[in-house]
C-alpha cells in the first residue's frame, strides 16, 4: 500500500506532467512566471525548514542557490557539445542533482562551524557567507565573472519546476511530521530542554541546514536553465531577503502558508507592473500592512 503522503506526491507529479504537456499553447510570459513560482516555492519551503521549523535565522539562502545554479549550469555547458541532444535531459537531471549536492556541501561547510551561534549572530554569519559566494563568483573568470554566465540551454519547463516543488514539499513535510521531525521543533522551542530529552541539537541544526541548502541548490539549477543567464548580482542579499519575507509572511513553520506566500509574492510584483515607478512602494507597503495585521503570518491558523 502506498501511504497518503506518497500518493500526494505522485498525484502532484502527474498533474505537473499533464499541465506541462499543454504548455506549448500558453502565453510565454505567463509560462515563465509560472516556472518562477515553482522555483520560489522550492526556495521558500526549504528555507522554512531552516528558519521556520528549526528556528535558525539564515540570511544566506541566495548564496546556496547561487552555488547550485553555477554548478548545474557549468555542468550542462561542459556536456552540451559532446553529448548527443537526445541524452541532454539526463544531463540536465544530473546537473540539478549536482547543483543540489554542491549547495548541500556548502551548507555543511558553513553550518558545522557556525550553527553553535544563535539568532542574530547566525544571521550575520550566513549573510557574510552569501556575500562571499557572490564576490567569488564575480571574480571567477571561468563562469563569466561580473559579466555573467551566458548561453545556458533552456531545459527547465513547467514539469520540472512543479514536480521538483512537489518533491521538496513532500520531503520537508514528511521529515517534520514524524517523531524524528519533532526534534527540529523541539530545538526551536527550547534547546536546553531538547538536549535534556536526548535530542542532539547540533545534529538537528546541521541536518536542517544541509537539507535546506540542497533544495536551494536544486532551485538554483532550475533557475539557471530557465533564465539561461546567470549574473552574480542576481544572488545578492536582497534575493535572500525576498525568500525570508516569503517564509515570515506565510507563517514560520507553516508549509501551506509559505507556499501560498511564495506564489503571492512572485506574482504580486508582476501584476503591479502597471504602476511603473510606484510598484516597489506599493509592494513594500503591502508587506508592512500585512505584518502589522497578521504578525503570526498570513496563513497561520491553529496549530502547526
Amino acid at each position: 500500500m502506498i501511504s497518503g503522503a506518497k500518493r500526494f506526491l505522485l498525484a502532484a507529479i502527474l498533474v505537473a506532467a499533464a499541465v506541462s504537456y499543454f504548455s506549448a499553447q500558453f502565453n510565454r510570459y505567463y509560462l515563465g512566471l509560472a516556472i518562477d513560482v515553482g522555483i520560489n516555492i522550492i526556495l521558500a519551503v526549504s528555507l522554512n525548514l531552516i528558519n521556520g521549523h528549526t528556528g535558525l535565522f539564515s540570511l544566506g539562502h541566495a548564496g546556496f542557490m547561487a552555488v547550485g545554479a553555477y554548478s548545474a549550469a557549468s555542468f550542462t555547458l561542459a556536456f552540451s557539445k559532446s553529448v548527443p541532444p537526445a541524452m541532454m535531459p539526463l544531463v540536465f537531471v544530473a546537473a540539478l542533482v549536482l547543483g543540489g549536492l554542491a549547495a548541500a556541501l556548502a551548507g555543511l561547510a558553513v553550518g558545522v562551524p557556525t550553527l553553535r551561534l544563535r539568532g542574530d549572530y547566525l544571521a550575520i554569519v550566513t549573510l557574510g557567507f552569501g556575500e562571499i559566494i557572490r564576490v567569488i563568483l564575480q571574480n571567477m573568470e571561468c563562469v563569466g565573472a561580473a559579466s555573467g554566465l551566458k548561453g545556458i540551454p533552456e531545459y527547465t519547463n513547467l514539469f520540472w519546476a512543479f514536480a521538483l516543488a512537489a518533491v521538496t514539499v513532500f520531503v520537508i513535510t514528511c521529515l517534520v511530521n514524524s517523531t524524528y521531525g519533532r526534534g527540529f521543533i523541539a530545538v526551536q522551542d527550547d534547546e536546553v530542554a531538547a538536549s535534556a530529552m536526548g535530542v542532539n541539537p547540533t545534529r538537528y541544526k546541521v541536518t536542517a541546514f544541509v537539507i535546506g541548502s540542497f533544495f536551494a541548490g536544486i532551485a538554483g539549477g532550475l533557475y539557471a536553465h530557465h533564465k539561461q543567464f546567470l549574473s552574480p548580482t542576481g544572488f545578492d542579499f536582497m534575493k535572500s531577503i525576498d525568500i525570508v519575507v516569503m517564509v515570515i509572511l506565510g507563517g514560520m513553520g507553516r508549509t501551506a502558508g509559505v507556499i501560498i506566500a511564495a506564489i503571492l509574492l512572485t506574482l504580486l510584483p508582476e501584476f503591479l507592473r502597471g504602476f511603473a515607478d510606484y510598484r516597489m512602494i506599493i509592494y513594500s507597503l503591502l508587506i508592512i500592512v500585512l505584518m502589522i495585521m497578521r504578525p503570526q503570518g498570513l496563513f497561520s491558523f491553529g496549530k502547526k
Partner: protein
Amino acid sequence: MSVPLLQLDHVTIRFGGLTAVSEVDLMIGGHELVGLIGPNGAGKTTAFNLITGVYQPVSGAVTLDGQPTKKLKPHQLARRGVARTFQNIRLFASMTVFDNVRTAVQLHRPHGIRNALWRGRGFRDGEAGVEKQVRELLGIFSLEKHRGAAAKSLPYGDQRRLEIVRALATRPKLLLLDEPAAGMNATEKAELTKTIRFVKDKFQISVLLVEHDMKLVMDICERIAVLDHGVKIAEGSPDEVRRNPKVIDAYLGN
C-alpha cells in the same frame, strides 16, 4: 557493595571567582529517593547541571553506573539514563502535550530520516509503537484527555506533571527534579508527593529531588544532603538533618 548509580567525587566548579560547588561528594544507589536542600544560591541547581552535563567540573568526577561522564553532553547523558525537569518549566511551548512526550520517546525508538521519508512499513510500525508508549504514559498520569492541547495551555500543576512525564519518556534510571513544588498550592503539593512516590516505585528508578518545601522533602526523602555556599554541610536521614546544628545555622543564620 555494588556500584552506585550515581557518584559525585570531590566535584568542584567555579564561575569566575565564585566557587559554586566545592568538593561535593554524593552517592545515589538504585531505587533511592534522595533530597538535595540548602538556602538560595547554595549550588543545588548547579549540582544538577553538573550531573546532566550542562557544566563540566573543574575538578573531581561524576560517575554514572561506574562510568565517568566526563565530556558527555546532555543529550548523551539522557541516552545513558539521566532525565530531569527544570526549575522554571521548560516544556516545548509550541507543541501539543502528546508531541512533548513523543519527542522524548524517540530516544529509544530510533527511526531516522530515511524512514521518515520513505514512509514504509518500518515507519508506520515505529510511529505506532511511539504512539502506544506516549498514550500509556499519558494515561498513567491522567493527562490523556489533554493530549491534543497545547502544552502551554495546561494548568500550572499539569505542566509540572507533564514535565515529569516527558522526562520519564526517556526511560531514565535517575530522575532529577528541580523544585517541582515551586509555585504550587497545598492540594497540588499533596498530589505531587503522591506522584513522586508513585514514579519511583512504578518505574523502579532513583530520584534526586531539589526542593525548598521542607515538609515535602522531609516527608518523602529517604536521605537528604544539605548544601550551603557550595559545600556539603550535612547528610543523613530526615531526622538527623533536621536536628543537625549546622543545618539550622545555615537556614536561620547565626
